[in-house]
């Protein structure tokens, strides 16, 4: 007996559907990359909170530079490192809107360190999402401020040498010490359970804006198969074995 696909595609059989806020544009991210999952979760959270017409996203420079192509909200594309300042300008002038920034490690923790720390210190009432994969993806795999000791990148081909390059920076722990932040948490998106936890964290971070609590900061420890030169499966394993011990998951601050 043959099964007709039309008999299966029925409303009562629906178990999952793409967020209405995700566009039909094919994402440019590499297969296995964490960005696509996080982009989707953000779209879902905005949809579920019903805040589409009150949300303004600030896109970064790096792999997620074209993120504004994927989520159906108003977007502002910032210069490298400046998303927290751009977000500050938007939020101060439109205090009733929901503002979020989305940055990678080079953007948030190297060139934009001052903007990150001062936005968090002022307690800008917005969500800052921090994708940390320990490498510059878009420019082709150079060393990031969060590259682990000994980890290879194109500008440290023999591994990060802390004598020369300094130690990897735990930005999330730094911003947790600032009174302006209300919610600081670190997650991953490599398993179904991790994705569910991350979505909960993003939901809470966006919802905090309603209560004017200060800056919500969500780090997502991520992979970069292309930059790390591993398969997606190998990357996830490598992340668990190497990234998680230095960047432990969980809430650092929740007030």
């Amino acid at each position, binding site marked *: 007996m043959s099964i007709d696909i039309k008999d299966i595609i029925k409303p009562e059989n629906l178990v999952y559907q793409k967020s209405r806020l995700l566009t039909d544009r094919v994402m440019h991210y590499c297969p296995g990359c964490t960005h696509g999952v996080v982009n989707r979760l953000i779209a879902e959270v905005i949809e579920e909170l019903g805040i589409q017409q009150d949300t303004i996203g600030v896109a970064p420079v790096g792999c997620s530079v074209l993120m504004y192509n994927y989520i159906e909200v108003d977007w502002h594309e910032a210069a490298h490192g400046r998303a927290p300042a751009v*977000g500050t300008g938007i939020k101060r002038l439109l205090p009733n809107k929901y503002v979020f920034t989305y940055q990678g490690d080079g953007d948030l923790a190297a060139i934009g360190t001052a903007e990150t720390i001062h936005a968090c210190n002022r307690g800008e009432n917005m969500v800052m999402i921090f994708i940390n994969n320990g490498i510059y993806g878009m420019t082709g795999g150079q060393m990031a401020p969060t590259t682990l000791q000994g980890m290879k990148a194109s500008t440290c081909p023999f591994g990060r040498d802390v004598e020369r390059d300094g130690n990897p920076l735990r930005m999330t722990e730094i911003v947790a010490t600032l009174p302006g932040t209300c919610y600081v948490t670190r997650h991953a998106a490599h398993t179904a359970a991790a994705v569910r936890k991350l979505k909960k964290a993003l939901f809470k971070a966006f919802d905090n804006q309603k209560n004017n609590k200060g800056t919500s900061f969500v780090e997502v420890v991520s992979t970069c198969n292309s930059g790390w030169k591993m398969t997606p499966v190998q990357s996830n394993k490598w992340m668990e074995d190497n990234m998680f011990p230095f960047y432990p998951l969980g809430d650092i601050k929740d007030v």
Partner: protein
Amino acid sequence: MREIRLMKGNEAIAEAAIRCGVDGYFGYPITPQSEIMETLMLEKPWEKTGMVVLQAESEIASINMVYGGAGCGKKVMTTSSSPGVSLMQEGITYLAGAELPCVVVNVVRGGPGLGTIQPAQSDYFQAVKGGGHGDYKLIVLAPSSVQEMADFVELAFDLAFKYRNPAMILSDGMIGQMMEKVEMKPFTPRWTDEEIVQMHPWATTGKPSSRERNIITSVELDANAFERFNHKLQAKYKQIEENEVRSEMFECEDADYLLVAYGSSARICQKAVQLLRAKGIKAGLLRPITLFPFPTKEIQALLGHVKGILSVELSAGQMVEDVRLAVEGKVKVEHFGRLGGVVHSPEEVVEALQSKIIGG
């Protein structure tokens, strides 16, 4: 009733910003313009008009806060002085590339480097020829009085929104610090959120179901599409050149010799023209008010009777290049100016015209 006050140029900028309905000011202290933010903080405009005033952690952050606010269709501005404006160049080119209106005030001090806190006009190239990367132009206004410091805030916003382009007020430490009487304009209310949605349909005000999402960006990875965008920018600059030139003439009708000077140097040159006329030398002064667009045609129109031109700037000679481009070699053009924060006297200008142009 007219409201006349005695105030510093920097204070006039602040007061005018509140009165013309500016939504946000983001800045970082630097001499000789710190009175602008100090005045704003003292005046507490957030209580009067709802205007936001915020001291940022750097000029880089200030201009990027302006970038964010400008994207929302708000009237936003920042002010600084030369070294700070150098730091802002990144944000300024993004604003130009994203075609956003905003006002940047540069109260120029002597450079290069940390330089000095005394007045100079050595940032002309930076303001008029680019400053940041890429093919872009700012609309540049050069006030030469405290009154113009006040008036040009509104004018700069009008032009910035008309062309969706950053506008710069290129002042200097002398105009910023000196006190003069100013006639203040009455308060104009800030635009409401509804007005902004109507007037600036491109702004990131939150996407309703009735329109496509708005995206403020300057990135375009398709070279051919980006070339088309660049041509569109150039067409806009051409339109600005055709429509927005502003200049002032002083004793130019019968002039044999012409001084070209802007800002504080134009004030000194006005006196120099009087001294020259007293000596029987028929001199005149052309004062560019807009530096971009430059009053090229206005200079050319005087070439029927003018025999030589001296460009007088507090710099090593920057605007003189635009004067020479306008004159196209038809008469002699030289530069005179003191450097590094030293201000020339009217007598020095008289002497320079005589030695470099008349006797030269």
